[in-house]
């Protein structure tokens, strides 16, 4: 079965990004497909590669990046939500005249249409948020 997953709350403050990660892992282990994970609202902050959590804590972004690599997941960060919150990839930083970008490997920035498309193309949609 195809599962679409939405993460709509930021990392560390809220458990949503952790719950979503464990859910996606379990879904993949059970033989389901997860064609896309969509990050919306403060969930876009999961994608920053600049976070430096203490050594003895999980690194939420690195966990997602590793999972994406292993299973070729499509991790999509909503562009409208990302721009509000200072999340930019290289192209977007250039286009907006900003001097830095911060999107980690394994994530890509795209439009809200990707969320709707995910709803159309998957069998189930699960949202983790606040």
């Amino acid at each position: 079965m195809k599962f679409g997953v939405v993460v709509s709350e930021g990392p560390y403050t809220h458990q949503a990004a952790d719950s979503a990660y464990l859910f996606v892992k379990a879904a993949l282990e059970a033989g389901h497909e997860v064609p896309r994970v969509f990050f919306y609202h403060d969930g876009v902050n999961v994608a920053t590669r600049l976070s430096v959590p203490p050594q003895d804590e999980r690194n939420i972004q690195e966990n997602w990046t590793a999972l994406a690599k292993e299973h070729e997941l499509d991790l999509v960060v909503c562009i409208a939500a990302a721009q509000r919150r200072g999340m930019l990839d290289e192209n977007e930083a250039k286009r907006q005249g900003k001097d830095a970008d911060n999107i980690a490997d394994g994530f890509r920035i795209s439009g809200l249409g990707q969320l709707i498309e995910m709803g159309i193309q998957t069998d189930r949609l699960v949202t983790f948020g606040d």
Partner: protein
Amino acid sequence: MTTKKFLYVNRKAPYGTIYALESLEVVLIGAAFEQDVSVAFLDDGVFQLTKGQDTGGIGVKNFSPTFRALGDYDVTKLYVERESLEERGLTEADLQEVTYEDEDDDWAEKPSIRIISRAEMADVMADQDVVLSF
């Protein structure tokens, strides 16, 4: 393309958090995909539709007029839960008017807001393919 029944569930008040605004943005973008769209307002979500919102004093954009444009995007089913209104001391008269032009009825202007009971809201929810919550 497959047509699915999409329900956007709004349970949060506007301005205190961004969920109401970013929910509306999804509804607007989603309209381009020509799915069967319904929008539900219950619990504090009913506050999103009140009339007379004026955000001049809080430095935040007033997005309530955007609801009135939904008809132009073929989003014509705005379900508002009666019990949620009553629990908050509101009536239909406290809500802004949202209408659409019905192309199947000689473009007659019709109300988009449909006040329904909690039981009817449960029926609407159980009738969907995709439920997105904000």
